[in-house]
């Protein structure tokens, strides 16, 4: 009895592992950078699925948004057709891991470039300059910037997010903070009047304003400055250079501005100047 169970327990663990790995291929752990993968004709790109205007899974199963257009353009420059792109969801907590594990080839997902991340992965770009801003209801007039949240205004943000802490620390001490786990939940709360404002990157907010045109608006000037980059393996310098070329081309030939107008135009939010690619 004892012996059998002792054997069976690890066996079970193997079954658990095996069942879940079932259809796992050797998902690119031996990949040699973006360029090699592109030559083979297929790319797996990490995006988010639920950020309107930036990158969203549409009801018909297709994907659209500014990030998606950037990702497609870059893939095109690398010689990969749109139909050969495999879109993969890259949730915030997983992004660095996905890249390090080689489960995605690159990530275009409102991915802010910072030094902590640069220790783990590489960033091409930036392809967009962003800053923290506020989203309010269209009929709201008394919130104009982060300081105007004083007086117990209600601010919504995602769990543990930096933007909300920034406002609380640096702009308005007595703002009330509601945390939900998605921005979509915050938008719902904003529309119903449960909170007064949402804070995160202006571009993300513009995306929500675009699909709620006339109901929500982005107010004030961005009060921080960040850049979105395309994340890929840290040591993949050739891949990074190729993607940087593609971004420069996209800005130069006007596709960049067109993508912005198409996806975020309806928000009424002013298009920021195209950033200069930083090759490091």
């Amino acid at each position, binding site marked *: 009895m004892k012996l059998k169970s002792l054997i069976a327990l690890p066996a079970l663990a193997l079954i658990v592992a095996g069942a879940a790995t079932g259809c796992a291929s050797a998902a690119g752990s031996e990949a040699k950078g973006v360029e090699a993968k592109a030559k083979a004709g297929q790319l797996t790109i990490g995006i988010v699925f639920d950020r309107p205007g930036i990158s969203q899974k549409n009801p018909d199963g297709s994907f659209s948004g500014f990030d998606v257009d950037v990702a497609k353009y870059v893939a095109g420059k690398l010689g990969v057709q749109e139909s050969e792109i495999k879109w993969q969801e890259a949730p915030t907590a997983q992004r660095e891991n996905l890249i390090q594990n080689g489960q995605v080839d690159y990530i275009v997902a409102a991915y802010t470039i910072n030094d902590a991340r640069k220790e783990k992965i590489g960033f091409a770009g930036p392809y967009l300059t962003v800053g923290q801003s506020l989203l309010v209801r269209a009929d709201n007039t008394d919130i104009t910037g982060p300081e105007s949240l004083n007086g117990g205004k*209600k601010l919504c943000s995602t*769990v*543990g997010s930096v933007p909300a802490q920034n406002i609380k620390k640096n702009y308005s001490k007595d703002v*009330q903070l509601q945390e*939900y786990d998605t921005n979509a939940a915050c938008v719902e*709360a904003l529309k*119903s*009047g449960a909170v007064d404002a949402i804070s995160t990157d202006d571009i993300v907010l513009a995306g929500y304003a675009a699909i709620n045109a006339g109901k929500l608006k982005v107010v004030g000037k961005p009060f921080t400055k960040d850049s979105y980059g395309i994340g890929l393996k840290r040591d993949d310098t050739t891949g990074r250079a190729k993607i940087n070329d593609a971004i420069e081309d996209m800005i130069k030939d006007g596709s960049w501005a067109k993508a912005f107008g198409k996806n975020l135009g309806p928000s009424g939010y002013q298009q920021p100047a195209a950033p200069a690619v930083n090759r490091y």
Partner: protein
Amino acid sequence: MEILTEYGDQLVTAFTRTIQLAALSAVAALVLGTVLAAMRVSPVWALRTVATAYVNIVRNTPLTLVVLFASFGLAQQLGITLVDPKSPTSITDSSFRLAVLAFSLYTATFVCEAVRAGVNTIPVGQSEAARSLGLGFTQGLRYIVLPQAFRAVIGPLGSILIALIKNTTVASVIGVAEAALLMKEVIENTSALIVVGLIFALGFMCLTLPTGAAFSYLSKKLAVRT
């Protein structure tokens, strides 16, 4: 170890929140659950039907949805925020109270089923005797049946309480700053995953294991011997 020094205070605060959530919800769920059980065994058709429908609907809803409905349905759509909107801490209080409400409503269905099962174990002679003494339905239930029923279901009630303690982690979806929410934040900021996991596991074991031991002691001590 530096995790403990860095997050020590927050850990205490978060687990205090967890305990508060569990304790308040437990009391409310016990009361509501008993009322529901009484309704389910009552002679009035409508009360039975309503209680049965309530139990079957709520018990079969994922707790995550119940909690989301409390925040998005009750508070935002119906305006039941449970706080004074002008209070400077209205949001934290509101989320906390709504979470307690959600847990109470959900857990009550399980309390109801446990109490009802307890009522079923009471020998028929007990309530017959009560009636022959001239006690009505509510009196018989209150003085004769329920006291014995409770003693019979202390064990199951203990399991429900333990489940409730564990379930409080779901409150993190509406931003209640309890243990699971803290764990998510800590995980994002450190790389010592296993240590973090063990700390939180230990925290919950400190809550659930004594509860389990206490209830199994009580259920033996208070069992109705026949």
